[in-house]
């Protein structure tokens, strides 16, 4: 997903940092203003088994999920402290039986709601009920442009066809639609067809999101990592489509950072403009943050308010701003541009979340990581480790979305 940005084009200003623009307009928020948008991961349960799932490898069981009343209280509290948009995600958020009730509550407290879904559990009646409850936007993930590859990646037979059907219902109900296409070595060749698919579906936005390699995706890196040539071709296709489809289909593009020169400004900077809430109610700086050991993340079930956790908890303050940085970040002219990249990636690849993200060319590990990616892209097995509650299951020969 892309962190929500503020944008003041109407005022003729083109800020590099939309949040700062809102803040300077007299926010009562403190040093780190309350985020404009929050991601609520209602559950980790999901019928799909995508090998790049952004959920942690240690999934939360259904029994530890917040109750309906707890989520409602969370939504009320978020609206009160100044959050404007709520993204309902998962796992698969429609696996929660109370989703319509939660969307209705979000509407009641004035939150703009977005559903990030795999779509396979939706019926037309359910989607219609969600629209009536005030749902503002639907984002559907796609694994390809045709069922053979798409269902194999999702590990779920019939997923692709169902997604296409739900996309049609979404537009029939006059809800805006974003197509989220997660791209990797095995489906990048379908990108032109995926762009056409999004157009045919009358989508408003297309997110071309290259897999980010932590958690499940890191375990599947050898099966997913694209080649440099593939990425160059992808960038070319996206740029052409962006120019050709201006005003018709907005295309957001997330570059795979292993092949970048500078690291991404992950989450807009740790604890700077984004947090998400895990199924059990933990307030996290990023959906992968629990992969970093040694940080204690407080829950909405603690005796602290969400605003207090955001502003004062050790986990949020640990990598906030630039004060925590070692060299080469500390004296780097880009330190407030990318905030040192991604903490989860630094932890996953170097063992210390406080190191420079190896995606950065200034990291002593960059060359090694880049070489490894190239090798995996050229010689890695295409076999997936499917995501599930059992710690993953290896794809069998001849699997086709079993």
């Amino acid at each position: 997903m892309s962190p929500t940005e503020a944008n003041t084009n109407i005022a003729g200003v083109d800020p590099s940092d939309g949040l700062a623009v809102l803040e300077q307009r007299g926010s009562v928020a403190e040093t780190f203003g309350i985020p404009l948008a929050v991601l609520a991961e209602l559950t980790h349960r999901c019928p799909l088994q995508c090998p790049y799932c952004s959920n942690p490898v240690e999934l939360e069981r259904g029994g530890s999920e917040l109750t309906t009343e707890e989520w409602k209280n969370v939504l009320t509290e978020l609206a009160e402290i100044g959050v404007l948009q709520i993204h309902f995600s998962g796992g698969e958020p429609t696996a929660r039986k109370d989703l319509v009730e939660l969307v209705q509550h979000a509407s009641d407290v004035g939150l703009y709601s977005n559903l990030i879904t795999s779509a396979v559990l939706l019926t037309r009646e359910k989607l219609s009920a969600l629209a009536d409850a005030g749902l503002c936007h639907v984002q559907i993930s796609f694994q390809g442009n045709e069922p053979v590859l798409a269902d194999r990646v999702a590990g779920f037979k019939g997923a692709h066809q169902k997604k296409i059907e739900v996309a049609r219902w979404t537009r029939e109900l006059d809800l805006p639609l974003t197509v989220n296409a997660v791209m990797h070595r095995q489906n990048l060749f379908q990108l032109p067809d995926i762009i056409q698919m999004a157009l045919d579906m009358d989508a408003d936005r297309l997110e071309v999101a290259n897999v980010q390699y932590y958690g499940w995706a890191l375990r599947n890196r050898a099966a997913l990592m694209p080649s440099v040539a593939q990425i160059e071709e992808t960038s070319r296709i996206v740029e052409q489509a962006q120019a050709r489809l201006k005003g018709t289909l907005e295309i957001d593009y997330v570059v795979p950072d292993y092949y970048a020169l500078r690291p991404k400004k992950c989450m807009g900077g740790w604890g700077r403009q984004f947090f998400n809430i895990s199924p059990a109610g933990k307030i996290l700086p990023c959906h992968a943050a629990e992969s970093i050991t040694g940080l204690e993340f407080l829950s909405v079930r603690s005796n602290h308010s969400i605003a207090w956790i955001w502003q004062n908890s050790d986990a949020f303050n640990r990598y906030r701003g630039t004060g925590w940085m070692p060299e080469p970040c500390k004296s780097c002219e880009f330190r407030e541009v990318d905030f040192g990249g991604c903490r989860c990636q630094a932890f996953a690849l170097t063992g210390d979340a406080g190191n420079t993200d190896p995606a950065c060319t200034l990291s002593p590990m960059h060359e090694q990581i880049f070489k490894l990616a190239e090798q995996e892209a050229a010689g890695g097995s295409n076999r997936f480790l499917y995501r599930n509650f059992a710690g993953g299951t290896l794809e069998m020969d001849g699997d086709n979305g079993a």
Partner: protein
Amino acid sequence: MAGRIRNITVSEASRPILPRHAKLKFDQTRQVWVLLAPERVLAPDEIAVEVLRLCDGVRNVEQMVDHLAAKYTADRGAISADVVAMLQDLADKGFLTEAREKTS
């Protein structure tokens, strides 16, 4: 069938309205008007907010311009050019549509 009117051309005859996915609201925390859209929060300036609040799908742009020209005793031609340009920009970004008869 689905399908908002894309690429609408704003003129004085248009009757613009915010689509259901664009919501204009006053943000109490930051004390500023915001326009909420998928994956975006815009902070329109005071004039834009005033114009957006007139976009009810009933008034046409001509009436909006008349109203603003009278209120600010300003040159009607200049106001019209500014308002049409601003609404066109919003429409191009998908934050504004045109009121229309239901045909199906």
